[in-house]
């Protein structure tokens, strides 16, 4: 896979310093109640996202990584307001959207879109590609003329690499990669400013992954898109993102520019994650392999203090009691770890 994505590596998106943020999450929390018994009493909460701060800059591609179950998808879906945030604030384009009602979110839906992980469950099996793409246009009152709408749909299909004559086909007639292209077309059809991509390639075959990633990259340049790119795989994010946030058990561990993060990871968890990435070049210096022991603790009952202390190789006494705060340890490199205080 690494070779296939190599093409992307040299491409950097220009980020002007001090550029405005398009999406901000402040102290964002999403807890899911755990209900038990006949009376469905709430007996606890799964703290899927437990106070994260992320700011995505206009035009960049922000990679959000972490292992399965760390809450990164929940964070993305909450930012998209598919879930009601438990606490905290979400700001999109300067507007607080964290408490808006569904009907007030209607205009936001045009601006922010989502690409889903599983191309098999993300497409309605009973709808043709054409009707899938036409529906949002109709609902939002765009391209009211039927011929214009048809043209727009075919243009989008062509743009994502689908044969525009396939409008009358059903999802089951397409392969995984093509289905994901349909998902991308659906996200693009409303011409959003921002796309949240929730592991868009992890369900795809390796050879198709790079094609889809290249497509997403081209689209970003063409339509000035901002991406929040969620992944569990650092090697995918490496080639795709400008900045990367590492998430662990509902908390942010480290946020930094891609190069800084890869050259000098500061958080012990980031170090462990990076050491697990296969080398992409035989002459690349070998990193020391850090193996994490133990399992990811349950987000229903997270450890006290720093949530990573149960698996951290540098654990200190303070880690077990006090939650570390995010601080700028190096310019533009934010880390939540007691080692750097």
């Amino acid at each position, binding site marked *: 896979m690494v070779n296939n994505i190599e093409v992307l590596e040299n491409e950097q998106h220009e980020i002007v310093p001090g550029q405005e943020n398009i999406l901000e999450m402040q102290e964002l929390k999403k807890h899911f109640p755990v209900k038990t018994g006949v009376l469905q009493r709430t007996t606890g909460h799964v703290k899927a996202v437990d106070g994260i701060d992320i700011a995505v800059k206009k035009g960049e591609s922000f990679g959000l990584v972490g292992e399965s179950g760390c809450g990164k998808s929940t964070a993305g879906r909450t930012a*998209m307001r598919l879930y009601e945030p438990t606490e905290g604030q979400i700001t999109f384009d300067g507007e607080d959207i964290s408490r808006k009602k569904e009907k007030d979110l209607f205009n936001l839906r045009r601006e922010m879109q989502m690409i889903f992980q599983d191309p098999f469950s993300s497409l309605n099996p009973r709808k043709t590609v054409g009707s899938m793409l036409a529906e949002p246009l109709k609902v939002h009152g765009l391209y009211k003329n039927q011929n214009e709408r048809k043209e727009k749909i075919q243009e989008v299909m062509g743009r994502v690499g689908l044969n525009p004559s396939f409008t009358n086909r059903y999802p089951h007639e397409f*392969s995984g990669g093509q289905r994901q292209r349909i998902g991308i077309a659906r996200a693009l059809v409303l011409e959003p400013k921002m796309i949240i991509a929730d592991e868009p390639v992890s369900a795809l075959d390796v050879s198709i992954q790079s094609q889809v990633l290249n497509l997403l990259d081209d689209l970003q340049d063409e339509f000035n898109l901002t991406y929040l790119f969620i992944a569990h795989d650092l090697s995918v994010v490496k080639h795709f993102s400008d900045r990367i946030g590492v998430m662990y058990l509902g908390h942010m561990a480290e946020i930094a520019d891609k190069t800084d993060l890869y050259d000098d990871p500061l958080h012990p968890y980031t170090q462990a994650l990076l050491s697990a990435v296969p080398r992409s070049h035989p002459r690349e210096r070998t990193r020391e392999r850090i193996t994490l022991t133990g399992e990811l603790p349950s987000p229903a009952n997270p450890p006290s203090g720093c949530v990573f202390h149960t698996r951290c190789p540098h654990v200190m006494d303070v880690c077990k009691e006090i939650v570390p705060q995010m601080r700028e340890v190096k310019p533009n490199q934010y880390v939540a770890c007691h080692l750097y205080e």
Partner: protein
Amino acid sequence: MNTNEMKQKAKSPPPASGAETLSEHESMFRIITKKFFQNKLAVLGLIILLVIISSAVLAPWLATHDPNAQSLTDRLAPPSADNWLGADHLGRDIYSRILYAGQMSLWVGFAAMLSATTIGVVIGSIAGFFGGWVDAVLMRIVDIIISFPSIFLLITIISVFRPAPSMLIVVFGLLSWTTTARLVRSEFLSFKEREFVLAARTLGLPTRRIIFGHILPNAIGPVIVAATLAIGMFIIAESTLSFLGLGISPPTATWGNMLSDSQDLTIFLTAWYYPFFPGLMIFITVLSFNFVGDGLRDALDPRVMEK
């Protein structure tokens, strides 16, 4: 859905920039009909039903006698050239009465199914989609209705009101929507978390559109199956009530009240053809509905879609 199958599918040969060869273009409807017609019993059931339904519809032309015309000289006459299936205790032609009775029995079955399914789909959709207290309240109502012994309730209601066909249909509908409601609710619960429904929400589609345009078409398979089987069930229920003397009142013929009229030892011993033919019609019709229902169940199975 089969995870292995999906994985296999995701690993199908790499495309040449989206222009891969596609499987032959087939619409959903064609796949379903093809699958249905592979099931021999279901096709047999469908053919029999078509014959029964058209004979009921064409009763005025197919009947040899006025179904209510009595002829005292022909009382309990055995099958003959004049009375093909014999005559009943009032000398009415059984063949003609069976045709007209079919109209009534099928009408009650279909209409009761329609009302029960409509109520069930609407309530089940609302409960499943909105969840929370809405769901809790609606499902407790369902529990209450289910916990009534329905036959006694039917008997009570029908002995209070006049047992007109419309009355039967309303009562059947009000007592039987619960199964459909539960079925639809469970489908909604699983579908509303599916990514395509989340995608519909991110696109800003209105709730009404998500429920009726996105979830319901995917959940409708089991409902169609249940509805098909329900028609048979309602025909039986109508026959049961008629048999107890509480169904549609004479002289209007239904298969049930014909059976009921023939419950007499002398008739049993001397005129077997009187109870036999209406009974046979109920049996064949309900059996055919069940065959068709089973065939639909297989054909509408969503796993079939993911070839």
